[in-house]
Every structure is written in structure tokens, then in C-alpha cells.
């Protein structure tokens, strides 16, 4: 099985090189084909045999001409004047020990041989390290891009919020109202009676101010404290949503906490206006966790359920699918 794998695996190269297959290569180093061929030549002369080890282990047969045909019916070219029966150069597989001795062929001293061996070991070590460097450089680049992307997402959210609030012109509630429509939230909120509790608004504004000021690491405990103080508050669902967002901005992101925050919002305030966004975010979080299928379920759910009511989030979900699936 392994042999046939090698045989076909690397199309041109492997069949021609036999032991030079990539899988075998790491152990075997390099094979000097010429030396190998010469060795076989010698072996053949010694035994008087026509053909050395056939790759498929069958006996050699007399020569057969190679014929080539055009697309037109008449065969045109005839190649292979040489007897292909002498398949000497088709390398026998499995002689992985050849490289060192072959490469060191003319050198009689064992010192030179060990030197060659050392060079090969060094080459392999350098290759291994080279691979590590390539991979780590790639990982760094990916991480940089990811954190930049997370920052951009949040930035976009904040700036779009600022723009909308300016437009709405509703004085004091401005920073809060825009990104998360509080008026809506209140109406849809579970049993919060539609108005903020005393002190709630200022507490929420304080936490939100930290978000606006990009002090994300301080905003998280502020929202947590807010939820402790006003578990049934009018802005509680908004706080859950922000926590979900903020856990994603951490470096590294706290995916599980983020997932819990969004899931909590959805289960406790199923009619809240941020629920569609929370579903979308859950999809994203699952994707970041590597659960592609689970993520896709959430994204599909967003598209199916909010196709008519919330085109913005549906568009986000569709774009995300287009980009990643």
C-alpha cells in the first residue's frame, strides 16, 4: 500500500525517484540517481541479469516497442529504438540506505563519510527550523490581523453609534441610545416596566463611557457590577450584549464567557431587539471556537427568522457565510 502510495503521490517526481518520496525523505536524505544507476549497472553486469528489481516484482520480458499515436487514426511516431526491456533506470524502491554511501562514493576515508552525514543532519535540522520559523511568522501575522479585525469591528460599532445618536438628537441618552436602542429595549423587556430604576441609568452610562473611552478591560467589571446591582434593570439586556462584545475584544478573546453572555441575553430576553444580533454573534463565537457546523446553524437561523424584520443583521450573517463557507 505504502509503495503504491509513493508511486503515485507526487506525480512525476516520486515515481522517478522511488525512495525520494517526501514521506521517506526525512529519514533517507538524498539519493544520487546516477550513482544508484551505476550501482545497478554494476550489479546487472555481475549477475548477467537483464533487469534489476522491477517495481512491481514481475519478471522482465523481451523488449516491446513504444508506440505513439496522434488523434488522427494513423499512428505517426514510433519511439523507443532503444530496448525498453532494459529498465535499469526505473528505480527500485526501498533502498533508502543508499544516499550516504552513494554521496560519499568516491571518498575512501570514513572521516569524509561522517562529514557528509553531519552535513545532511545539519541540512535536515535547518529545514525543520526553517519550517518552524515559517509557521510562527504565519501565526504572528494571523494573530495581528485578528486583533486588528476585532478592534475595527468594535470601532465601527462605536462610530456608527455616535453617528446615529447625533442624528437622533436625543440629548442625555445619546451615547447609550444609538448602538443599542434603549427605547425599544424597554418596551420589549421582560418585566422591567419600561422605565429605569433609580441610579440605573447613571451606572449604565458609567460602564458605557468606559467602552467609548476604549478602556475595555475596565468596562467588563463595570458591566458585571451593573448587572449585580440591577439584575432586572431596564438596561440589563444591553449590559449582557456589551459583555458579549467586550469578551471578544480581550486578547486573547474569552470565547466561552462571550458565548454565555449572548446566550443569556437570548434566553432571558427572547423578545429583545438585540436578540437577532446576539444570534449572529453566537454564530461568530462558535466559528471562532472552531465549531463550524454549530456556527452555521446560528447564522442560518438568523437568515431564516429575521429575513424580513432585520435586514442589517441578515446581511451580516450572509456576508459572514459567504466569506467563511
Amino acid at each position, binding site marked *: 500500500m505504502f509503495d503504491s502510495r509513493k508511486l503515485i503521490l507526487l506525480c512525476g517526481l516520486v515515481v522517478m525517484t522511488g525512495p525520494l518520496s517526501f514521506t521517506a525523505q526525512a529519514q533517507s536524505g538524498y539519493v544520487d540517481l546516477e550513482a544508484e544507476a551505476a550501482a545497478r549497472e554494476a550489479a546487472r553486469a555481475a549477475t548477467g541479469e537483464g533487469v534489476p528489481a522491477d517495481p512491481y516484482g514481475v519478471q522482465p520480458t523481451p523488449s516491446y516497442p513504444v508506440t505513439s499515436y496522434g488523434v488522427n487514426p494513423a499512428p505517426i511516431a514510433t519511439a*523507443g529504438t532503444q530496448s525498453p526491456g532494459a529498465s535499469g533506470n526505473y528505480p527500485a524502491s526501498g533502498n533508502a540506505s543508499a544516499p550516504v554511501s552513494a554521496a560519499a562514493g568516491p571518498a575512501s576515508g570514513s572521516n569524509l563519510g561522517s562529514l557528509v552525514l553531519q552535513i545532511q543532519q545539519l541540512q535536515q535540522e535547518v529545514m525543520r527550523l526553517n519550517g518552524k520559523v515559517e509557521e510562527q511568522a504565519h501565526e504572528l501575522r494571523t494573530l495581528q490581523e485578528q486583533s486588528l479585525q476585532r478592534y475595527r469591528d468594535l470601532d465601527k460599532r462605536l462610530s456608527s453609534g455616535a453617528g446615529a445618536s447625533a442624528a437622533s438628537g436625543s440629548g442625555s441618552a445619546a451615547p447609550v441610545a444609538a448602538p443599542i436602542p434603549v427605547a425599544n429595549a424597554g418596551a420589549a423587556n421582560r418585566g422591567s416596566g419600561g422605565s429605569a430604576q433609580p441610579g440605573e441609568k447613571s451606572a449604565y452610562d458609567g460602564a458605557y463611557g468606559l467602552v467609548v473611552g476604549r478602556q475595555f478591560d475596565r468596562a467588563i467589571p463595570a458591566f458585571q457590577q451593573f448587572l449585580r446591582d440591577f439584575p432586572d434593570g431596564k438596561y440589563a439586556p444591553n449590559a449582557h450584549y456589551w459583555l458579549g462584545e467586550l469578551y471578544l475584544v480581550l486578547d486573547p478573546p474569552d470565547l466561552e464567557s462571550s458565548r454565555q453572555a449572548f446566550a443569556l441575553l437570548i434566553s432571558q430576553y427572547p423578545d429583545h431587539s438585540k436578540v437577532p444580533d446576539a444570534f449572529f454573534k453566537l454564530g461568530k463565537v462558535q466559528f471562532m471556537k472552531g465549531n463550524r457546523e454549530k456556527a452555521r446553524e446560528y447564522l442560518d437561523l438568523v437568515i431564516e427568522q429575521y429575513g424580513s424584520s432585520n435586514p442589517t443583521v441578515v446581511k451580516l450573517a450572509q456576508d459572514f457565510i459567504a466569506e467563511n463557507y
Partner: protein
Amino acid sequence: MNRTHAVFASLLLLVCSLAARAELVIEITQGVDNPTPIAVVPFTWSGAGTAPEDLAGVIDGDLARSGQFDPVGRADMLGRPSKPDEVFYRDWRAIGSDYLLIGRARALPEVVGHIQVEYELFDVNRQMMVYSGMVKGPASEARMIAHRVADAVYEKLTGIPGAFATRMLYVSVTRVPGGKDYFRLTLADSDGARPIVLLESREPVLAPTWSPDGKHIAYVSFETTRPAIYRQELATGKREQLTNFRGLNGAPAWSPDGNTMAMVLSKDGSPDIYLMDLATRRLTRVTTHYAIDTEPTWMPDGRSLLFTSDRGGKPQIYRYDMRSRDVQRLTFEGSYNARARVAQNGRDVVLVHQKDSDFNIAVLDLETGRMLPLTTTELDESPSIAPNGSMVLYATKHAGRGILAAVAVNGSVKFRLPAREGDVREPAWSPYMP
């Protein structure tokens, strides 16, 4: 009516005889969830004798093979219209067909041995003709004419140009018990029909590839007892040996402009990538590394080459920029990525990707860097991508034998092309044919 029956019977006979002639048969293993039903009514024939080919049957097969269509069986058809004024939409709505294709073939009186095919495509639900076309050509190329009709229909209905009127190369190996194997380099239509053996040898034949104009092929043959790269003109069969260097001569790959061939030579030590100017035969060395650099393939713009190298300890895909001479690693997922081929869009790269112990075909998106595995069998290799970028042809093992199989680049459709005998490997999908 009797006459129609006779024509139909003879058509059927023809199909059977053709099917018997094809070396590969097709088994669709996975299609899209809701393939579009389409009725392809047998085309009428006017001219001496019988029609040169069951054109509708070929079109039917093409559309079914794409996995995106579900052709209606002929027995279910309530009518056999061949002209637009014979179409009754209710007949086709009744059997649930969304689209209807009708057509007529006739011998061209002014050119001996040539035929002309006219066809119309109808949207049954909207009750209107959505496309009509005409194709001419020699009667001996009737199957190709049918493939061209299928290409047009496919493009009209999916927005993607079809790639049915294309061909493929593959190598089949016939084991001879107690003797030497037969290697055959075969040229066939994209559906496996009309196989023609281009080269037959008792020594290995490998790495067949196409020139960008589809008029030449190149391959590696061991017929002189050592590997050498040959170029062969399809129309004449004229062959020439391009290389005869010490060591490896392998993995030829034509540049998009057709003037240069990338190849792997080991004449200066370890295998490295070289470029050969095909007019002057002058060689330029591209890579110089003690690691193995192999399997070069061109980006469609011709400005860079992708190749496989184990310079990082394990085989991965790298890109060589022609101008800056920079080498950049492209694959990071998995411990083994090799044998890349690039789609015409310059974005999708199909390759052999090792996941756990299996070797699968995967597609790498060069823009996002994401890798999507396409196959789940164990030993998949030699991916070759259709000129429209929609399907990947590859070699795999099925029931202990080497067969060809195909998978859509988005993973939605799969089919197998098992050979009637021997092992089949190293498929190479042609570019669009002139």
C-alpha cells in the same frame, strides 16, 4: 410514428455501442440537494441515414453529471416537441420539469459530412423561451457539438460557463500477470467517452499536461530507460524529446502564454525547478535549494509559480514570484500539502492535503488562506481543475483499484469514473478547446 420509433431504436443502439466503447463509466455519488429538473427532448434528425449521435442523450448526461440538474426520463415525457410552436408548457409542468430543451439536427448540404444543430431552452414556469442557439461542425464531432449545447445551457441556467466540451488525459496501467505492465496515455472527452490511446509503453508514463491552447501535450516517459520529457502535437502525433538530462526530468508545466515550460531537473544536485524557453530550449534555474523543489504550476497571470518543497521539513506549497524572485510559503494547515493546481480565477488552489492518515483533495482560498477539504476517501491524488473552475478531477482508490473521480470545488457534487480494466491515474483536464 413508426419512423420515429425506428430512429429512436437506432439511436439507442448507437448509445449502447458508444457506451461499450468508453473505457470509463460514470457513477454520480453525490449531487446538490435540490437539483433543477430539466427535460431534454430527443433532437430530430433530417438528413440521409440516421443521426450521427444521440445529441440529447449526451446533453442529458452532461447536465446530470454536473449534479445540479435532474434530467427527466424520456418515458415520462408527454410529448416530443422539436420546434418552439410544438411546445405545450402544461405537458412539462405536469411532470414537474422546470426547464425544457428541444432541438433539431440536420446534415449541412453545402459541406459534406457536417451537421448543424439548432436548439431552444424554455422556462416552463414563466412559459417563455429563455435561450436559443446553433452549433455547426463535422458529424464525426457530434458528441463535441452536443457538449457545446450543454455548455451553453449550463451557463444560461447557472451563470457559470460549462466545461463539458473539453477533454482529459489520463494514464492507465494494465497489470500483466507474469509480464510487464502496459502503460497507456489516453485522451478522452470530459465524460470519458471516445478514448484514444496516444502512447503505449511497457515503461512508466507520467505527469501528462496540456499546452494552454489545447493543441499540444507534454509528459514524462521512461521509454529510453531514463525519464525524459516529451512534447506531442495532438493533431499529427508528432513527438519530440525536450529533455535528456542526468537524473530527474519531470513534472512539466506550460506557462499560460505557451512559450515556457517549467520542469523539475536534478542535473545540478537535488531536484529544483527550471524554466525552458521552448523556442530556444534555453534553461533558467528557478530554485536553488538542497531541499526537494517539485511539481511546479503556474498562476494564470504567469507572474508566479507555485511549487511543492520540503525546505520547511515537510512538503508544503510555496509561491515563487518571477520578478522579485521571492519565495513565500502558502500552506500552513496540516503536515503535508502538495501537487497544487490553480483555477483560472487565480484564487482557488486545489492540492493534496494530509489529514490524519488520509490523503485528501482540498481547496485553498488564496485570499482568505482557508483550506476546505473536498474529499474523504483515503488516497486521493493528482487533482486537476476544470477550465471553468467548477470541478476537480483526481485519482483515488476504490474497491482496490485506481480510478478517477471528480468533486465540485464547493464540495457539493461528486462522481466517479471507474475504468473497465486496469488502474487509472494522473488525470489532466484540458483547457477550453478552440
